[in-house]
């Protein structure tokens, strides 16, 4: 098979896909408007293609891409649930999609009303006092939340609180975001049940600690049963508790971070609230805080006065602004539609089913794979490929073999505290039949790993390209055409 052409390889001089815009104002030579020295000397070599070329090219590319709509996508920690189509249609309504962020307030009452409602709804779902929708993704929310934490301590005259505690099971963005917010990072161990090790926590708590970041359920897919104790310990030491909401899909309507003792929360609307992941984004990472911390939120905030909606400028204690305008509004619209589609019972039902699906799948795989924590899992679980590794088959090999069956593999090698880890999150939108199919495939791969390992180590066999050389890519970077 030939390589797929790049868009540049379609290019033919003089070909075009758009007509020149109609220009009815008197035309003047460009160098009369803009001094010649500022004008571009050699043109940007963008492709010259027809509309048909463009459509064939991008349609061709889309066919070389696996999405949730193509098949099962149990990528742990990412909540790859189905992305409802009505959400897309509503976000594309001209009254949402073609509205400028600086229009007069009276011409964007619908946008502001939706923003206000969403702030309230998210506060209710998480048990928090106030929400900002400004952060663009989970990591951006973490950064925002930690800045709020810092502003809070500084306002109390505690600028000596320079450390943030992060469990060893935490997602990479947690320590990275803490670093961006100007903190030093202290790691705590997980105990043999996968919870935060309380002894280890006790040892690092002190008056130099600003707070603890926790995902609950955590990235092992386990609910930290000691959460109230943890909260008491951290608060007792004068720290705040930060909730990474990446795993909220396990507990909607069942328990709320606010009631667990968390002071600051971010959500990933692109995970829990069904907005598409877009091949890597856009997401949205709203941040909620306890009432007392509301004054530190970034601004502006949407507010309501009777039946008028308006934007309120941030007050003196606000951390300021973390991006331009008001957040990824188009994503927020989709999440809003999803929540209204589900309602309170629907969200709870989604979490219950997500947890049921994960436990069912874990049970089916527990005979052939090592399950490092023998507990009830929440919406996802982690298994280890240690047993297969003994036979020379790595988790990476198994992931590549999964590709041959039309599934997206689970998250691999995260969390790092489990050897040869594979993190599986089926979500609630998958049927029993799909789960059975996937379990069957996993068991077959386990069998292959034992009996004909080359079949697994040589995978994938059925994809549009064979296994790609990532070492070469990094050693001899070719990063543009």
């Amino acid at each position, binding site marked *: 098979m030939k390589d*797929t052409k790049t868009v540049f390889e379609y290019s033919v001089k003089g070909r075009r896909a758009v007509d020149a*815009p109609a220009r*009815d104002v008197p035309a003047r030579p460009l160098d009369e408007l803009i001094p010649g020295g*500022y004008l571009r000397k050699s043109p*940007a070599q963008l492709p*010259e*293609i027809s509309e048909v070329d*463009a459509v064939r090219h*991008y349609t061709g*590319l889309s066919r*070389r*891409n696996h999405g949730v709509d193509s098949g099962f996508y149990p990528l742990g920690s990412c909540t790859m*649930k189905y*992305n409802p189509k009505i959400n897309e249609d*509503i976000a594309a309504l*001209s*009254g*949402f*999609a073609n*509205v*400028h962020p*600086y229009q*007069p307030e009276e011409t*964007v009452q*619908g946008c502001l009303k939706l923003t206000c409602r969403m702030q309230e709804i998210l506060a209710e779902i998480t048990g928090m006092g106030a929400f900002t929708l400004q952060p*663009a*993704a989970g990591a951006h929310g973490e950064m925002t939340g930690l800045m709020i934490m810092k502003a809070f301590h500084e306002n109390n005259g505690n600028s000596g609180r320079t450390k943030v505690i992060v469990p060893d099971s935490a997602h*990479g963005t947690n*320590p*990275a975001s803490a670093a961006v917010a100007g903190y030093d990072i202290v790691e705590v161990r997980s105990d043999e049940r996968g919870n935060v090790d309380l002894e280890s926590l006790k040892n690092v708590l002190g008056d130099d600690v600003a707070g603890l970041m926790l995902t609950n359920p955590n990235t092992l897919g386990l609910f930290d*049963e000691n959460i*109230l104790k943890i909260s008491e310990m951290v608060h007792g030491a004068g720290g705040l508790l930060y909730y990474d909401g990446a795993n909220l899909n396990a507990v909607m309507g069942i328990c*709320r971070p606010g009631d667990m003792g968390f002071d600051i929360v971010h959500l990933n609307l692109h995970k829990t609230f069904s907005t598409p992941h*877009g*091949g890597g*984004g*856009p997401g949205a990472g709203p941040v909620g805080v306890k009432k007392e911390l509301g004054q530190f939120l970034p601004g502006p905030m949407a507010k309501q006065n009777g039946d008028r909606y308006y934007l309120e400028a941030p007050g003196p204690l606000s*951390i*300021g*602004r*973390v*991006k*331009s305008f008001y957040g990824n509004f188009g994503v927020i619209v989709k999440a809003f*539609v999803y929540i*209204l*589609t589900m309602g*309170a019972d629907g969200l*709870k*039902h*989604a979490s219950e089913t997500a947890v*049921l699906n994960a436990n069912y799948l874990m*049970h089916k795989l527990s005979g052939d794979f090592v399950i490092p924590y023998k507990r009830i899992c929440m919406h996802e679980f982690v298994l280890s490929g240690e047993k297969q590794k003994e036979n020379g088959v790595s988790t990476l090999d198994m992931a590549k073999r999964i590709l041959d069956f039309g599934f997206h593999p689970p998250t691999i090698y995260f969390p790092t505290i489990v050897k040869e880890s594979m993190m599986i999150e089926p979500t*609630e939108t998958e049927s029993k039949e799909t789960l059975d199919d996937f379990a069957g495939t996993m068991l077959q791969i386990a069998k292959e790993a034992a009996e004909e390992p080359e079949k697994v180590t040589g995978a994938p066999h059925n*994809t*549009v*390209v*064979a296994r790609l050389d*990532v070492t070469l890519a990094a050693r001899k970077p*070719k990063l*543009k055409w």
Partner: protein
Amino acid sequence: MSRYIPQTDEQKIEMLRETGFSDISELFSEIPEDIKLKRKLGIPGPFSECELMGHLRQLAGNNISTDDHAFFLGAGAYDHYIPSVVKHMVSRSEFYTSYTPYQPEISQGMLQAIFEYQSMICELTAMDVSNASMYDGATALAEAARMACGAARKNTVLVSRTIHPEYRQTLRTYGRFCGFKIIEIDYAQGITDLDKLQDNITDDIAAVLIQSPNFFGAIEPLDEIKPIIGERKIMFIVCADPISLAILEPPGSFGADIAVGEGQPLGNPLSFGGPYLGYFAVKEEHLRKMPGRIVGQTVDSNGKRGFVLTIQAREQHIRRERATSNICSNQALNALAAAVYMSVMGKEGLKETAVSCAQNAQYACDKLVETGSFERVFSAPFFREFVVKSKKPVSELNKKLLENKIIGGLELEKYYPELENCWLLAVTEKRTKREIDLLSSVCEGRCGE
């Protein structure tokens, strides 16, 4: 009950039984009783599709869109025409329902599209390497400042006051917490005051940040910045509008180390401020300090061309607190829209669009000044946006325009108190002579009084 959950009640019972549970509540038995929610969440819903569509259509109907009115409002978000093909291609659900291409063998589509996006951004900016996108122009600029400070182990950046006010606010937030100081350089005649820039240049400075065309729409004399920096180890960071780069000399030609900007004008709808994308491109030597995801070309085990995420040792999932940035999810689908837009606009189309913006803006400016009610505030050449000072309060003009189905410009005084009654107007290729003439006559008071 919930249309996106396929499991039937019977199946759930069967699954529970097989897994060794008798009731769904047992699955939550490890959650302490004390923190369980004993009531139903107080949120609206559930609603059927039909009800929702009706309700949300009404809400959307309470907003005025670019379909209803002629927009002369820009200030960082622009009403350009988006060819239909862009929307159709980004609506391919194999693209939009996928995630970060961690498994390249089944993600070649998105990877190649991003590789092409990076290539086209490099072409436009004349830089060596582009990443796969940042959240928006403001955060791209803030990350550029962080990167410069981190790389040079210095903590002060010089920031022109002609940079978008919200970008400067974002910079201040990042600066306060990441630990870098911002010295603002005032403007003269609508462009960065180069004397003041010169006065503030010392070896302690990590970077100089300039936007061109700047917030006032004026084109900055980028050719004069590098000579001011001289041989000092100071990064030159240029924030540039991507459409303008079809006709303006690109940042790379002026010796920029980092080029960033708001990518929204490249085929992304206004969407009340987001999602947009920040583009981020650097000189080769800065590659390993760069934030964000990068796609590179490689080969598969049969020697066939393919694409993968690469130079990942910079990133949070590997480097954790020592990563160059905390960014994980980015704005990939917006970058895809930008890629499709750039490839269909093509070499000629993008240039023509840029020329139309310049022509329309010049015509509008002349037309307003001719009325005698406005004067130009700055003499610097401009691209798509310009500033005029009005005899009447700008807020009144905007109100009157609204009655005539025109969304007027930005009241600059809100951001620059010294610019009393100054008005920032953007004129894209979408605006017609009729609309511009109407703008001018309403301002003169000839209509709609």
